[in-house]
């Protein structure tokens, strides 16, 4: 193996009484993609944060090409050539600055000169953006960008850095297939130039596509290394979970009464009207590219923005909620995507995050019943399998995947008529995804359920029916039985050239 390799040995790290890393020994060779797998809370992001100088390890050492790598701060790490794309997308971009500044932020911070050279910066930024296929006006404020574009901005910056070690912590969590594909090409180019790459993902499709070797992690220690071709994917999953993965077996039940009827809905000017029906005991997945209008549709159902035209009916009556509150009162719940922006209340503990939307249920005459809150929290932590020390722990002390489970649990705590989940699996490990999916299907008898996912795999795991959304309209419908994946993919991607031309 090349002596450019990065070696970690005996890394320990604890947060208070929570021993997160318990002696990690790991090698990341140059010119290969090392995939790190691990369940939510296994300690992957913590490991990454130690490598890139955010946290200090309690003990253990890291060497790069044989010499010790001491990164006391992110800038040290960057100087040593360790470049990271963090799991939390908002850790990667500065919203109040333009895309140009964001793309060259690390070189601004790295020093050199006092005055900005704007023309040069802009040219460089365009080049960096083009490399990852980011087709936006680089003078726009990042705060105006969608989350996917923000993620691309932080990826683009990292890619441009000529790293020795590139760490990607769930970089595709907000990307759909097209963007992800472009990312994979780039990762491969860098690998071929001899960069060591540490890739963290919960998506098997990413892993299958990229992995040269797989390292599994469990409970803060390495539980398996797989580097012989062909890679033993199921072995790696077993090593990471400690047991076999539960297989999903979708048995499509008999749908009940119609709950939601959508007629000739137009989500934005110029979009084709579409209709849709969702019934009790039915789980519908809607898939499509990022920006195809999934969130807009969810928003229309949840009262965040009125559709341009068309009617929505809920249980036979008209459904035109004027606000989120109105929608919730009508029994329409939305678990939004991008939890850190849209869902997580950082100052609250797990319990308070869980009970937020239905706090009225836990209060009498406006007075809170802490006991009732605790009971609900305890129940949901159990049913959703949330890994935590204590229900009164701060939400941010949870790993990303467990935070996501809390956010889904929040909306499963009460009975809905229509449950809408927008990207409910963002950052969730395979087993947890299965668990959440199972839970959603198991409880779906007395409501209609719509799940928005960009990943087709996820749609197939959970849905009775898969709808394809494109250009703010439904363009295809498939019953989840002997489904023709390539046909769906065609419908998903087909619209792309048209969309690009339209813009």
């Amino acid at each position, binding site marked *: 193996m090349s002596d450019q390799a990065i070696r970690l040995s005996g890394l320990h790290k604890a947060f*208070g009484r929570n021993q997160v890393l318990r002696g990690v020994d790991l090698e990341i060779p140059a010119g290969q993609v090392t995939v790190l797998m691990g369940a939510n809370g296994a300690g992957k992001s913590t490991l990454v944060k130690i490598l890139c100088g955010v946290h200090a390890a309690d003990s253990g050492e890291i060497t790069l090409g044989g010499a010790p790598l001491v990164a006391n701060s992110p800038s040290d790490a960057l100087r040593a050539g360790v470049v990271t794309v963090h799991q939390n997308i908002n850790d990667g971009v500065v919203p109040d600055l333009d895309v140009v500044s964001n793309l060259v932020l690390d070189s601004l911070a790295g020093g050199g000169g006092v005055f900005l050279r704007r023309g040069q910066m802009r040219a460089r930024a365009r080049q960096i953006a083009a490399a990852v296929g980011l087709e936006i006006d680089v003078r726009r404020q990042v705060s105006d960008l969608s989350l996917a574009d923000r993620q691309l901005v932080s990826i683009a910056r990292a890619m441009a850095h000529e790293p020795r070690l590139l760490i990607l912590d769930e970089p595709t969590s907000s990307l759909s297939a097209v963007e992800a594909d472009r990312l994979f090409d780039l990762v491969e180019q860098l690998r071929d130039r001899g960069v060591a790459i540490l890739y963290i993902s919960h998506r098997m499709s990413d892993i299958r596509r990229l992995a040269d070797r797989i390292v599994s992690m469990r409970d803060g220690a390495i539980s398996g290394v797989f580097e012989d071709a062909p890679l033993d994917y199921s072995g790696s999953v077993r090593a990471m979970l400690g047991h076999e993965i539960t297989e999903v077996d979708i048995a499509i039940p008999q749908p009940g009464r119609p709950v939601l009827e959508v007629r000739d809905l137009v989500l934005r000017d110029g979009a084709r009207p579409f209709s849709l029906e969702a019934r009790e005991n039915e789980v519908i997945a809607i898939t499509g590219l990022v920006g195809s209008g999934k969130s807009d549709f969810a928003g229309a159902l949840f009262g*965040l923005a009125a559709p341009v035209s068309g009617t929505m009916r809920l249980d036979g009556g008209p459904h035109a909620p004027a*606000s*989120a*509150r109105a*929608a*919730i009162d009508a029994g329409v719940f*939305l678990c*939004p995507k991008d939890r850190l*922006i*849209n*869902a*997580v*209340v*950082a*100052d*609250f503990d797990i319990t*308070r995050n869980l009970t*937020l*939307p239905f*706090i*009225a249920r*836990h*209060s009498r005459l*406006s*007075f*809170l019943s802490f006991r009732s809150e605790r009971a609900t929290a305890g129940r949901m932590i159990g049913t959703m399998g949330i890994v935590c020390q204590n229900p009164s722990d701060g939400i941010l002390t949870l790993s990303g995947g467990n935070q996501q489970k809390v956010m889904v649990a*929040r909306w499963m705590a009460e009975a809905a008529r229509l449950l809408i989940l927008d990207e409910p699996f963002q950052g969730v490990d395979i087993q947890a995804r299965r668990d959440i999916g199972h839970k959603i299907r198991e409880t779906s008898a007395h409501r209609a359920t719509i799940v928005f996912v960009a990943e087709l795999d996820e749609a197939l795991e959970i849905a009775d029916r898969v709808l394809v959304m494109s250009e703010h309209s439904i363009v295809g419908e498939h019953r989840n039985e002997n489904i023709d994946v390539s046909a769906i993919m065609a419908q998903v991607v087909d619209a792309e050239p048209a969309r690009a031309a339209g813009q």
Partner: protein
Amino acid sequence: MKDTSHLIDFAIKYGFLLLMAALIVVFGLNAEGFLSPFSAVFILQSVAITGILALGVTATLVVGGFDLSIGAVATSALMLSAYVMVVWEMSAGMAVVLCLLMGAAVGLVNGLLIVKARIPDLLATLGMMFLLVGLQRIPTEGRSISTGMALPDGSTAAGIFSPGFLMLGRHRLDLIVPDLLPLSVVFLVVIAVLVWVFLELTRHGRLMYAIGSNAQAASLAGANVNRYKIAAYMISGTLASVGGILLAARLGRGDVASGNNLLLDSVAAALIGFAVLGASKPNAFGTAIGALFVGILLQGLTMMNAPYYTQDFIKGGVLVIALVFTFALSGRGGRGRG
């Protein structure tokens, strides 16, 4: 290892209260009469008005806002109540009602400026502050209001501060000793308890904290963010007007020069509250303790004959040290922005 971390936890949680206890002991030993019930009541009374204002500030801090106009609202209420009784010759009840309405209305306007016109909170309430500071002086052309004052039209004002109104600020209830407990202290305690109950024990308070932490998330969870934000500013405005009414009742005069330090002192109390019990966030109990702390410090120093400028110095010094203690140890900056 574990012991130090326990110790630090303890220090974070109780450090501030211990510091306060230590202060009381030091003053008790050095300043004769400091430990009498009278002295305790004096301290409470001296912080009653700032304390009430600080509780209002706390409500706006909870929703992630800030109200710079409270001092001006309080002095406006002071002037308004005097004007209503002395110039318009109306009753005390009318004066109180109009002041409370004024405070709530100012809060409403602040809230609308912030949520509807989307003006940053500091900016909107700063503008409101200047506006009120000017407005409250226009009817009397900058003069104080007292019975017998000459009015711009040449007549003299015949109304008086009714005894019932003055009682609000001056009456003392019997408690153990006769004539011990001033009504204003009762108001402070009642309001502090009400605000505490509201913020900690009701769902409205819970939602306000959620809004302060992540307004977007709260909104998507069904909270009416705008309404709660406006409510917070209305609470703040109303409590500030209560403070102004008490001030008027104590002064017995619409004095334009009073109330200069109300804003800074009440902001200080609310911010010190962050450090109490390691809360690292705005909270009613902390605010009340913060106000009390400043009161104890000033009372003790006064009784030890410290000149006024050393009082400022020591107030600042103790504040900084207490804060270093709490925040540096807790290792997290709380909400960062006030």
